[in-house]
C-alpha cells in the first residue's frame, strides 16, 4: 500500500458524447450510442467510428494556436482547461514548478503523419512541413499542456496502448506520493481515426463490421459482439494530495485510492487466455487501496466489444470480485477511445461514485453465456463507496484504478 490519498478536484472531458463533462456524462447515462459511418474513412474496409461532435478547435483554442497542433493535442488542451476551471486553479497565480503533467496516448498524431506523407509522395521531400515532428510526437501532449498553462513540474507522456490513460493517472498518483509536485494534470488523449490506422485495425480483425446498423456496433459483453468501434477524445483529471486539496478548500469529487499495473508477457495483441495479468492488476489495485474485493460496488470495465477482451476480462472480474458489483462498459456509447479510454472511463467512475449513478452498457441484448457478471443494462442509482476502472492494452499492459467517494 502506498499510503497516499489522492483527490480528484477537477474533471475535463472531450468525448464522442460531446465537448465537456456535461454532454459526455449525459450521453453515457442515456446509453446513447455514438457510432456512425465516418466520411473520412470512405475508402476503408471498415468505416465505423465515434467522432467528437462539434469540436471547433479554431473557436476553442484560437486559429493560430490550433493550426500548429495535431487533433490529439487539441482535445487534451480543451479537456485540461475544463478540468482546471473545475478545480478552481488559476495558472496565472500558481507555483508552476509544483504542477506536473502526465498524459497518455497510444499513438501521437497519425493524422499529421499521414497528411505529410501525402505531401512527400505527391509533391516531394522539399515540401514536407517543418511542423511534422513537433505536431505528431507523442510527448507533445504533455509538452503543449505545460506551455498552455505554465506547468513546469514533472512532465511526461506514457504509452501502454489502450491502458495509457489509466497508466497516466496511476503514475501521477505515484508522483504525488513521492512529493515530486503538488498538482498533476493527468489523463489521456487520442485522435487515431485516420485511414491508415483504421486500415491497420481492420486488418487485425479488431473492428466491428456491423456497418448496416452502426449504433449497435459497439456492444460490450454481448454474445453478438464482433469487435470495437474506434473513438476519439480526451479525459483530464486534476489530482492533488487529498489533505492539500481540503486545506485549500477545493471540492473533492472523488479519490484515487489504489493503482495496479501489470504485464501479461504473453502476446503482442491477445490477452492471456486465463487473464492472469488483468487479474493481478485488479488485485494489486485493491491491495494498494487497502480494500477487499467485497468493497467494490461498481466496475467501469475495459469492455471493448471484442471477443477476446470481454471474455477474459469478465472472467477475471468474476474471479476477483465477490459482492456482485455493477459492471458497465461505457464503450457501448463512446466507442473505444484507445489511449484516452482509461482516463475518460476513470472520470466516468469518479462521476458514478460522486453522483451515485452507474451508467448502462449500451447495446447489451444478451450477455455472453460464458460470463457470470452483473452488467448494468439501464442507468442505475447506486451508492458506490468504491469503484474500479480497468484498462488493458495491446502488448499485454494492464492498469486498474481504485476510485473512492470523497
Amino acid at each position: 500500500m502506498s499510503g497516499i490519498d489522492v483527490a480528484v478536484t477537477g474533471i475535463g472531458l472531450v468525448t464522442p458524447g460531446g465537448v465537456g463533462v456535461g454532454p459526455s456524462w449525459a450521453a453515457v447515462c442515456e446509453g446513447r450510442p455514438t457510432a456512425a459511418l465516418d466520411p473520412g474513412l470512405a475508402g476503408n474496409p471498415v468505416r465505423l467510428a465515434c467522432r467528437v461532435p462539434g469540436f471547433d478547435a479554431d473557436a476553442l483554442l484560437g486559429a493560430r494556436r490550433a493550426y500548429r497542433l495535431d487533433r490529439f493535442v487539441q482535445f487534451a488542451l480543451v479537456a485540461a482547461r475544463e478540468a482546471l476551471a473545475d478545480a478552481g486553479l488559476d495558472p496565472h497565480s500558481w507555483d508552476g514548478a509544483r504542477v506536473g503533467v502526465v498524459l497518455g496516448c497510444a499513438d501521437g498524431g497519425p493524422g499529421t503523419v499521414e497528411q505529410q506523407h501525402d505531401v512527400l509522395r505527391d509533391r516531394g521531400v522539399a515540401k514536407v512541413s517543418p511542423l511534422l515532428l513537433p505536431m505528431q510526437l507523442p510527448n507533445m501532449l504533455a509538452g503543449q499542456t505545460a506551455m498552455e498553462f505554465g506547468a513546469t513540474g514533472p512532465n511526461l507522456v506514457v504509452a501502454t496502448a489502450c491502458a495509457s490513460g489509466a497508466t497516466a493517472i496511476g503514475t501521477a498518483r505515484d508522483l504525488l506520493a513521492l512529493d515530486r509536485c503538488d498538482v498533476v494534470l493527468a489523463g489521456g488523449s487520442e485522435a487515431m481515426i485516420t485511414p491508415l490506422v483504421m486500415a491497420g485495425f481492420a486488418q487485425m480483425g479488431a473492428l466491428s463490421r456491423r456497418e448496416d446498423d452502426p449504433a449497435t456496433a459497439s456492444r460490450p459483453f454481448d454474445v453478438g459482439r464482433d469487435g470495437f468501434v474506434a473513438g476519439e477524445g480526451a479525459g483530464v483529471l486534476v489530482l492533488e494530495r487529498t489533505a492539500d486539496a481540503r486545506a485549500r478548500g477545493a471540492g473533492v469529487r472523488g479519490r484515487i485510492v489504489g493503482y495496479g499495473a501489470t504485464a501479461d508477457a504473453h502476446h503482442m495483441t491477445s490477452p492471456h487466455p486465463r487473464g492472469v495479468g488483468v487479474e493481478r492488476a485488479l488485485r494489486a489495485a485493491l491491495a494498494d487501496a487497502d480494500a477487499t474485493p467485497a468493497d467494490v460496488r461498481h466496475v467501469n470495465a475495459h469492455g471493448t466489444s471484442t471477443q477476446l477482451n470481454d471474455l477474459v476480462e469478465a472472467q477475471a472480474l468474476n474471479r476477483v470480485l465477490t459482492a456482485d458489483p455493477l459492471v458497465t462498459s461505457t464503450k457501448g456509447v463512446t466507442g473505444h477511445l484507445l489511449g484516452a479510454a482509461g482516463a475518460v472511463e476513470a472520470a466516468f467512475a469518479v462521476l458514478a461514485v460522486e453522483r451515485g449513478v452507474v451508467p448502462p452498457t449500451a447495446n447489451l441484448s444478451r450477455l455472453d453465456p460464458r460470463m457470470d457478471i452483473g452488467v448494468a443494462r439501464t442507468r442505475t442509482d447506486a451508492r458506490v463507496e468504491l469503484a474500479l476502472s480497468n484498462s488493458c492494452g495491446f502488448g499485454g499492459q494492464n492498469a486498474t484504478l481504485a476510485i473512492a467517494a470523497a
Partner: protein
Amino acid sequence: MSVQFEQLKEILVTKLRVAPEQVTPEATWEDIELDSLAMVELSLMLEENCGLRIGDDELLETPTIKDMVRLMEERSTTA
C-alpha cells in the same frame, strides 16, 4: 500597399492563420508570433504561391513585414 504585401498577407492569414488585423507593415515577426518553424513554412509557401525563392534564414533577418515585402519586391524584379 504593393502586390507583394497583399500576397504576403494572403499567405499569413489564410495559410498560417494569423489574425488579419495583426498584419501591418510595422509588425515584427514576434508581434504576429511567427517563429523559426513558421519561417520555414513561409519560405515554402512563397515559392509555391508566388514563385519566389527566399530562404527562411533570409526571412528571419527582416525585422518587420515592411522589410520582408521589400525583399519580395527585389526578388520579383530580379526573378
